[in-house]
């Protein structure tokens, strides 16, 4: 299987310095947040990679970098063998954009409330000049709506006439309009109730099976990730700490942070497993700890962990960035 998406050493730095005058008067230095710091992964065609992590770990920034909503500070993204950074600035950009689409978290904010569903779903078709004639557009919109479990007749309605789950399906229909191969989904079900989340997740899986779609799925919910993904990347303060096939990650988490996240999930079946309350909190990304960013919260940390930053390395089929795993201490 060839990788459809290949990300190498991706970095994104945001300048969060105080305004120039204040900086000059108070002699404050410039300040930067390394939102994404050296992330590399590949997604094989027809599979799903999920990125998980707590708020502020940089997972949404990765999503935005991939579709070109942000330009990377360093590193590269290859899509189907082509480097996207240069391509997105060239005349070939629309051709690339057709092939990858994004679904956002909030279905209330991502649909224009004054447009009818027909116009919302047809917008990418018009924009990319795929269909121009109104009868053909109407037929295609109806087809797309049916694909996501809505009725063709819904095309005449406005977004406010739909529930949250139905709106999220409208944004999926819009994303599918250009027949993309790759969908970036940023917390697509986090704003939805569980029964509606089930509807949306089922549709996404059905679509993947039928059309061979490739997904990057961003979520903080490990149970959802376990349901949808093939591979899982765990992020902490802008870096990947573990990247592993789903089965391995959930059966045998290697990185202490992954273990901590898995231990912290409320256990719905109450199988008697005591939930371990986690120590500490995510540090301030403006002032990350030295060495391994997780070391202040890690039960296995030693002097090396606070001095030297671990690199992502392969151990028994999974990639882990941890000195303790590398040294065989855990």
């Amino acid at each position, binding site marked *: 299987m060839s990788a459809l998406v290949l990300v190498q050493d991706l970095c994104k730095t945001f300048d969060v310095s105080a305004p120039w005058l204040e900086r000059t008067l108070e002699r404050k230095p410039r300040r930067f947040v390394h939102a994404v710091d050296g992330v590399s992964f590949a997604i094989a065609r027809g599979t799903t990679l999920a990125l998980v992590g707590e708020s502020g770990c940089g997972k949404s920034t990765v999503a935005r970098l991939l579709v070109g909503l942000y330009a990377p500070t360093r590193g590269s993204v290859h899509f189907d063998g082509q480097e996207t950074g240069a391509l997105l600035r060239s005349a070939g950009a629309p051709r690339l954009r057709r092939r990858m689409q994004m679904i956002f978290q909030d279905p209330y904010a991502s649909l224009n409330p004054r447009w009818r569903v027909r116009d919302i779903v047809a917008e990418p078709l018009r924009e990319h000049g795929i269909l121009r004639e109104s009868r053909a557009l109407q037929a295609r919109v109806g087809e797309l709506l049916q694909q996501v479990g809505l009725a063709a007749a819904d095309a005449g309605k406005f977004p406010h006439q739909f529930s949250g789950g139905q709106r999220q399906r409208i944004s999926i229909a819009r994303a599918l309009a250009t027949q993309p191969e790759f969908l970036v989904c940023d917390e697509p079900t986090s704003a939805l109730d569980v029964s509606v989340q089930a509807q949306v997740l089922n549709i996404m899986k059905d679509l993947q099976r039928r059309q061979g779609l490739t997904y990057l799925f961003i979520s903080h919910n490990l149970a959802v990730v376990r349901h949808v993904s093939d591979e899982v990347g765990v992020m902490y303060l802008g870096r990947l700490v573990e990247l592993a096939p789903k089965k391995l990650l959930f059966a045998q988490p290697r990185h202490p942070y992954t273990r901590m996240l898995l231990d912290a999930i*409320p256990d719905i079946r109450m199988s008697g497993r005591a*939930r371990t309350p986690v120590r500490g909190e995510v540090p301030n990304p403006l002032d990350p700890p030295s060495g391994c960013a997780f070391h202040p919260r890690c039960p296995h940390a030693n002097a090396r962990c606070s001095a030297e930053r671990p690199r992502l390395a392969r151990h028994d089929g999974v990639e882990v960035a941890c000195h303790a795993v590398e040294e065989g201490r855990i």
Partner: protein
Amino acid sequence: MKPLLEVRELRVEFPTRRGTLRALDDISFAIAPGEILGVVGESGAGKSLTGAAIIGLLEPPGRIAGGEILLDGRRIDDLDADAMRKLRGKQIGAVFQDPLTSLNPLYTVGRQLVETIRTHLPLGAGAARERAIELLRQTGIPAPEARVDQYPHQFSGGMRQRVVIALALAAEPRLIVADEPTTALDVSIQAQIIALLRHLAKEKGAAVMLVTHDMGVIAETCDRVAVMYAGRIAELGPVHEVIHVPAHPYTRGLMGSIPAMDEERERLLQIDGAMPRLNAIPRGCAFNPRCPQVFERCRRERPELMPAGRTQAACWLHAPAAAPVGQEAPR
């Protein structure tokens, strides 16, 4: 044990130009000291509204149109705003979802705590400050002597929620109403807050009403759970039974739609459709248009809570002379 909080046939209505909307109907439950009752449901089911009615913070034009709320045997739903304000804080502590909006950004955490303590307890400034520091320590804030003089923005999300809980506990209330206290927090912090709530109920004997949409949090924290649907209680029972042998088809659907950590499933169980709007609640059982086991009586007559196995469910499948027999719950 004698219940601390008793809610009897509570009804909340919103008068609108197009007629009166009944947002809560026939809500009855009780919470004993030391007990944690979970109230779970999807958005719009009325769970937060139930909490707001109990603490006397219904947003107008919403009003209690029927039923009664008793705290320790005394009616509190007919108190005037002033009497209710005295009760809130002293007898009832409230914790809301967003810790940032529950705190005043202009005052130090200590000043807010001292103010609340001195409103409800006869303590001098020095003693109140001592107590504020003690409360922060109890809720697990490190170095409370230093933290007490800091402002809310100097605290992280999880720490802020602890401050809000410390505020709610300032006068040692006997009832705590917590509305989605962990929803805005990351999983790792969630576990810490839940441990704190459990400690308050089990060690201090507080009665806790925990409103949340997260079944995982309910499973771990609560003794009993009420499942709400379209403004009514669909099922009420011990948490283990409701999760493992749910009697109401809605509870079954809800449980089946949650991706589980301990099993592999290709598709999630889904309940088609969505919860009805308040102005279009179907006749009979509100769940009947989405129910896989609907029969004729469900469309005609509204079911009340009735014994169903080891829980209570508002479902005709459990009527004494019901024709069809309920299926086993999906694993």
